[in-house]
């Protein structure tokens, strides 16, 4: 006897961008096998795919508006709002995350252009993996289900492990890949073990269901759930490189190919934070008082360690990695505000990831797309050798440091503000002091670029794609810094369910 399986209805819009990118990845591989096209062609195709994904994301944006406008009264509400039996959710956060991921991916592909050309035949796999990683993290950001979240996490992460080691000819790349892989696997295992504990403790896997269960009972001994929650948090904290779970980041940022490190770091952060917000705010609001101090502690440690250790780095990429740790701390600070923090976190993520990709674009242009060492001395006198690179890098660094008239300042300000309201004044003060320390290492690079004459090696002009990435990210940084309204409004609508 064969049981009849009822075909479920599928709301395609909800996974439009993922479909586009997933199919795109498959097509890249197939095209490569079939036609062996030039890398340039493949790259353009990827851009096309991303353009489609962007369009579909926009469609999702409209759809969310529509869903919200119709409200719960709509008979199809659940089917459209939490499609696929509640595995994912089509809310503003998910759409915003996709916007960020798609854009960051496009920027990453553009700044990795030289890398792909140097990879020869492996370019196709690399491009496909980039698309797949993006797909995974955007699924992760949209998921409303712990196992779905794990799958998205793994799709993205495994693709990133490979990308870290894609330039095999260099030892650093191997080292980065194995370190990333081993630690990443442990973190994933910790995450999914946490999921299993939560499941064991509540009998639920859907985030909303977990919350529903916890809201309905009074647990006197919630040890298993609490441990599970914390393990999930740790797994995600690893992904966003929050201290003390950050040790992989500097090595991977340094060892992985410069062209795509920015992309790798950015999408992992977006996916990780999206999941973290969802897990903590959607599934465990009951335990807010329990996790808040811990997140605050992680945030403080991240900011301090990131800033202080970045001060003594001589390699720009390691410096950016540690600054990324500090940034993770800043973003976590926003979580102190609970639901009110979600929008500022998303704003922060949007501006920071764009800056990060742009900054690594510069690093790639200066130290070579496949290169792994980018000692700060390589930047000496950059202002004279390549003023445009220097200026854009300076803008991006200033943006990351959070000085006014850049998007970074608005982002930090927003985070601090909500955290202060939430009563975490001490954390804000730590954050402020950490950002002062952070000024030092950003300025140090600027010093070398502008105030040091350095060797007079002429740089070859970076290709158009990288140049447009740099100009775009720098302009974005300033534009959002001056007129943050539209982006803030977009992020402000994000309210965790």
């Amino acid at each position: 006897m064969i049981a009849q399986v009822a075909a479920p209805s599928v709301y395609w819009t909800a996974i439009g961008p993922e479909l586009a990118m997933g199919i795109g990845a498959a097509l890249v591989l197939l095209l490569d096998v079939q036609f062996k096209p030039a890398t340039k062609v493949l790259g353009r195709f990827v851009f096309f795919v991303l353009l489609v994904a962007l369009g579909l994301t926009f469609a999702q944006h409209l759809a969310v508006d529509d869903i919200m406008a119709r409200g719960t009264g709509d008979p199809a509400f659940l089917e459209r709002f939490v499609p696929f039996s509640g595995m994912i959710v089509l809310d503003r956060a998910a759409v915003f995350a996709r916007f960020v991921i798609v854009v960051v991916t496009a920027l990453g592909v553009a700044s990795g252009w030289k890398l792909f050309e140097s990879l020869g035949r492996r370019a196709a796999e690399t491009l496909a993996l980039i698309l797949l990683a993006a797909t995974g993290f955007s699924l992760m950001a949209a998921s409303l289900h712990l196992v779905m979240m794990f799958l998205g996490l793994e799709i993205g992460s495994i693709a990133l492990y490979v990308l870290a080691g894609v330039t095999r000819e260099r030892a650093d790349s191997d080292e980065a890949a194995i370190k990333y892989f081993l630690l990443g696997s442990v973190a994933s295992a910790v995450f999914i073990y946490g999921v299993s504990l939560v499941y064991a403790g509540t009998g639920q896997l859907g985030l909303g269901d977990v919350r529903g269960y916890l809201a309905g009972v009074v647990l006197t001994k919630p040890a298993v759930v609490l441990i599970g929650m914390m393990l999930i948090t740790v797994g995600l904290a690893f992904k966003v490189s929050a201290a003390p779970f950050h040790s992989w980041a500097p090595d991977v940022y340094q060892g992985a190919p410069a062209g795509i490190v920015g992309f790798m770091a950015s999408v992992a952060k977006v996916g990780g934070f999206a999941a973290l917000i969802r897990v903590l705010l959607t599934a465990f609001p009951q335990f807010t008082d329990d996790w808040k101090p811990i997140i605050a502690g992680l945030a403080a440690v991240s900011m301090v360690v990131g800033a202080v250790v970045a001060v003594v780095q001589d390699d720009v990429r390691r410096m950016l990695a540690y600054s990324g740790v500090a940034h993770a701390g800043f973003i976590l600070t926003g979580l102190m505000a609970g639901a009110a923090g979600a929008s500022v976190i998303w704003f922060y993520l949007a501006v920071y990831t764009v800056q990060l990709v742009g900054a690594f674009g510069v690093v790639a242009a200066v130290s070579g797309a496949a290169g792994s060492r980018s000692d700060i001395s390589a930047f000496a006198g950059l202002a004279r050798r390549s003023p445009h690179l220097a200026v854009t890098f300076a803008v991006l660094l200033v943006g990351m440091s959070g000085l006014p008239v850049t998007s970074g300042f608005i982002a930090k300000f927003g985070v601090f503000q909500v955290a202060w309201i939430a009563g975490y004044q001490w954390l804000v003060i730590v954050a402020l002091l950490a950002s002062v320390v952070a000024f030092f290492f950003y300025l140090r690079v600027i010093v070398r670029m502008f105030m040091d004459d350095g060797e007079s090696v002429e740089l070859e002009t970076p290709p158009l794609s990288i140049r447009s990435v740099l100009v775009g990210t720098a302009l974005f940084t300033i534009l959002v810094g001056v007129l943050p309204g539209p982006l803030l409004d977009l992020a402000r609508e994000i309210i965790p369910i």
Partner: protein
Amino acid sequence: MTQYLWLIIALPLAGALFLHFFGRRVGEPRAGWLATFAIGGSFAVALAAAVPFFTGEAIHGEHLTLWDWMPAVGATLEIQWDALSALMTLVVTGVGTLIHVFAIGYMHGDPRFSRFFTYLNLFAASMLVLVLAGNFAMLFMGWELVGLCSFLLISFWQHKPSAAAAGKKAFVVNRIGDIGFVIALMLIFANFGTLSFEGVFERAAEVLSGPEAVAIGLLLLVGAAGKSAQVPLYVWLPDAMEGPTPVSALIHAATMVTAGVYLVSRSAAIFELAPAAGMTVATVGAITALWAASIAIAQTDIKRVLAYSTISQLGYMFLAAGLGGYVAAIFHLMTHAFFKALLFLGSGSVIHGMHEEQDMRRMGGLLKKMPVTAATMAVGTLAIAGFPGLAGFWSKDEILGVAFERGGFATVLWIAGLLTAMITAFYMTRQFVLVFLGKPRWSEGVEPHESPRVMTIPLVVLAALSVVGGLVNTPIRFGLEHFLEPAFEGIKLAHPPEGWLMFAILAGLSVLAGLAGIAIGYLVYSRPQEQWERFEGGFGKLWGLWERAYDVDDVYGKTIVSPGRKVAEVAAFKVDLPIIDGAVNGVGKAVALVGESTRRIQTGFVRSYGVLFVSGLVVVVIWILTVGA
């Protein structure tokens, strides 16, 4: 006439400005004449404006408000024109004009001839601001501006390091006195809410308590002591002789140094309420008079003798003013202006004739070579020595009379004054004899000659004034007193004892003292050099002490300047750099150090990363189980 009063200040100021920008083009000697006309013009205006005071038409002062300056402290730029300021103006502009004329000759050939007259005019303007001010703030402005001009003129020969240092010293010491002045102003403002003379003096009696008045009075004394070179702030004045001689005459004899006396007299209303402060002023004055006179005895530099003599005479003025004898003080101020200007210009003429020689031991026998100078100097010497009938006699006598009349402690002051009178007569005679009489002791190649007319005429005029200047306020005709009385409305003025007998006794005593001094001086110094040198040696170490001015500069150097310097060095190089800046840089270094040690956790071994990760995990889990739930 009131509306033209501003011209008094404006004329020399305009002269200064014009000469500043175009002086070089105007050239010598026209620049000098221009400056002279500027100040002469303001003398004329002042004279015209002062007519009502002479005639007795105007009794009260008049005001001319120029414009608001600092309304928050009630300070406007205003001219107060009363008898006191009128008299001061006349002295300043009158003597000033003569000195200008003299300087045309004296500064002949100096490459910065026009610049010199710029400064002279500027000085005149500043001094006029001081005496014409209608409030303390503006007075302070003039006060400081004359300090500036004094600085500029003392260090006029900038290439001489000693001149530059002397200028700086003058300004700084004056500034130290200014601390007192400024604090006094603060007190005044805090009590009255204004700094205008009117507002302060009219309400002084009702507002000030005794101690407050004493405090203000003493603080004003500090300021006045700085400017008028009283003990202990007189040290700048002898050094100020580094400037060109007309400067010494104008600033350091006739005008600027009297500003302190003027200030005390102007603030009579406050000292009236503070007898203790007044007595302090008088005591300081007496001490200064004696102290400086004793130093003057042993000086060999022709100008230094005069410098210490000036300090001494200023002491007289303080003595009088402190005891309430404001008229006597101002009277002496005026006569002193005449004869001291005369003496300085005379000495300038000598120096000029002796090719910049200032050491009296290398002079002698100049009477024949410089008859006019010698004659006028003789008049000046007699006047300052208190020779009966001459200007100094009348004014000094009045001061001593005031002191005697007060009695009590003031009697001690009177004795000091009398002693000073004798010493003064002695050292002035010594000076005259050493310079003009006896045999020439000139250095080789020196050809003394009489100065040109442009220099001698002012001498003659001043000599004439030194003779007759005292007659304005003889006991027979208290002209000056009547003239000044309106300015001291409501103030009890101190007078010498009444009656001819007392006058005769007191005058007799002082004349006796003066004549004794003259006699000793003449008898000692008209003999050959070996003999007066033996006389000087007879004083033993004391003479050397006088010669070195009691080593006060050294003492100040050792007790204030060097320790101050050391403090500054310690602050700058032992505190500021290593400690304060070190702390700042230390924070930076500490951050880097923490960073360096923290980065060691990042060993590069993936397994130690694992340990870190698991540690974090365990901590977090334990935390949530213990703290969390």
